[in-house]
């Protein structure tokens, strides 16, 4: 077992939060602190590093219980503002998924479709306190005779509404290009022909899982900023792949870890849960997510000091390769290069386009820093950490 020179426990850091003595910095501020003081000095000085990301996260949705009707109903099909919600659960429970388009959406019949309203927008409307039209249909049973019912609901009147996102916060993601001869519309945005642009989607040095690459402090029960409120990491996410290739510093160079997160929608805000319409692709939800990383020792100080120069991803062709399941890289680029505005693809300069808001990621890290500094947010010690 490796021994550290600095050793702090969650309880000690939480005690500092309670007494107002905690030192919190953002993941961007931590870079300079570790550069100046070294990991050990930084670990003595800093207790918590905050991270943030604000991106479309398709694997998102909400469990909703909408209360009974009279006569009672065992809802078999449910729509919220005409967006189908999955109702194969108990009588008045449903799950509204972010990517579900509304019933009369023309989809991609005239490509590229617009996807103006879907599950993500329903969640945004609920978080904004707006009234949402709920319709339920059923086949009728002795105990639940009602076959069809509708009502207006809003977040306040719903007995239960919990955001439950089975895959958020991807640790790294591809940089997308298009090597075909026509523009394509993907979940990575519009991609012009012949590698006309290169799109990427990560907050890089601010992104939660880049700051704890081996999930040493993140696991079941980690308390987080989620959609403007408080949430928890409740499992590893779908497609969690810790075995991805990594740099010597530990950050994966392809998509790797993911998070399953949950939180009470009633504490969240529409500023941080934004319905998204991905042209030609579909609906989604842009989620604000931030994780506080406890600096338990100098090793965590070193991890959280990671900068865009040391984080890399692969250039992937979404024109031919990706749809055909071909896994091929057209080069490895750092997030520093991506953020500079131009990268080299096959020897040609290519403009880069971000899809993840760095402005909002910084805001989230700053809000979380403020919550913790004010004593309004305590760290959640994980029951066990994510699989590595």
């Amino acid at each position, binding site marked *: 077992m490796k021994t550290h020179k600095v050793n702090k426990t969650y309880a000690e850091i939480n005690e500092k939060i309670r007494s107002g003595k905690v030192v919190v910095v953002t993941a961007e501020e931590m870079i300079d602190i570790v550069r100046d003081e070294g990991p050990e000095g930084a670990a003595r000085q800093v207790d918590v590093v905050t991270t943030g990301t*604000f*991106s*479309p996260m398709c694997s998102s949705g909400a469990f909703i219980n909408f209360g009974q009707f009279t006569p009672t109903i065992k809802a078999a099909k449910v729509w919220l503002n005409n967006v189908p919600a999955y109702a194969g659960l108990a009588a008045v429970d449903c799950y509204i998924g972010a990517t579900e388009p509304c019933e009369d959406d*023309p989809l991609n019949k005239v490509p*590229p479709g*617009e996807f*103006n309203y879907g599950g993500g927008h329903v969640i945004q409307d609920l978080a904004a306190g707006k009234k949402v039209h709920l319709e339920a249909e059923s086949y009728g049973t002795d105990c639940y005779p009602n076959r069809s019912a509708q009502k207006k609901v809003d977040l306040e009147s719903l007995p239960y509404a919990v955001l439950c996102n089975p895959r958020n916060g991807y640790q790294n993601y591809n940089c997308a290009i298009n090597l075909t001869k026509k523009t394509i519309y993907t979940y990575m*945005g*519009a*991609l*012009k022909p012949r590698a006309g*642009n290169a*799109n990427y989607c990560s907050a890089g040095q601010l992104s939660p899982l880049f700051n704890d690459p081996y999930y040493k402090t993140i696991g079941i029960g980690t308390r987080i900023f989620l959609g403007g409120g408080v949430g928890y990491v409740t499992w590893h996410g779908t497609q969690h792949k810790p075995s991805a290739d990594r740099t010597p510093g530990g950050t994966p160079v392809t998509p790797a870890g993911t998070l399953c997160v949950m939180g009470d929608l009633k504490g969240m805000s529409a500023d941080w849960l*934004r*319905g*998204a*319409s*991905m*042209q030609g692709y579909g609906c*989604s939800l*842009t989620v604000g997510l931030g994780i506080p990383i406890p600096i338990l020792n100098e090793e965590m100080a070193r991890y959280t000091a990671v900068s865009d120069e040391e984080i890399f991803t692969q250039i992937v062709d979404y024109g031919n390769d990706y749809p055909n399941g071909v896994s091929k890289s057209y080069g490895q680029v750092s997030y520093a290069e991506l*953020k*500079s*505005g131009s990268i080299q693809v096959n020897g040609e300069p290519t*403009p880069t*386009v*971000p*899809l*993840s*808001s*760095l*402005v*909002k990621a910084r805001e989230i890290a700053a809000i979380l820093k403020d919550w913790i500094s004010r004593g309004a947010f305590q760290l959640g010690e994980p029951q066990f950490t994510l699989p590595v």
Partner: protein
Amino acid sequence: MYSRILVLRFPKSVVHKPLVCNLVKEYDLTFNILNAQVLPRREGILVLELYGTRKNFKLGVQYLKDQGVQVQNAEQEIKRDQNSCTHCGACTAVCPTGALSIQRPEMTIEFNQKKCSVCELCVPACPTRVMKVRPKNQTFFD
């Protein structure tokens, strides 16, 4: 879904007919009235945003013209809903003129309307739909 802001001028011979109503009934178009004025014994002017499929839109406009209505495209401009922009950057992939650009190192997305050609490519490319087509602030009734 196709939409345009139109300025319709109704000569006094047709001012009393329910023409716009027929756009809805016969051509499945929806509209949003932005301004309207009917001067007694003179022409009427209606500024509306008309939505529908491209095909129905064409047919509807043809119908109006056949009825003697003058149809003009309103001068349009692109506006950004500043407060709702998330500064994600997705729009910079499609903007051909550099009107939408990234300010470094802050990574805020700037919109310079002077460089905008009103090509409208950013409107459906913006995931949060904050780029909007608006009629130019002109007086229709002078």
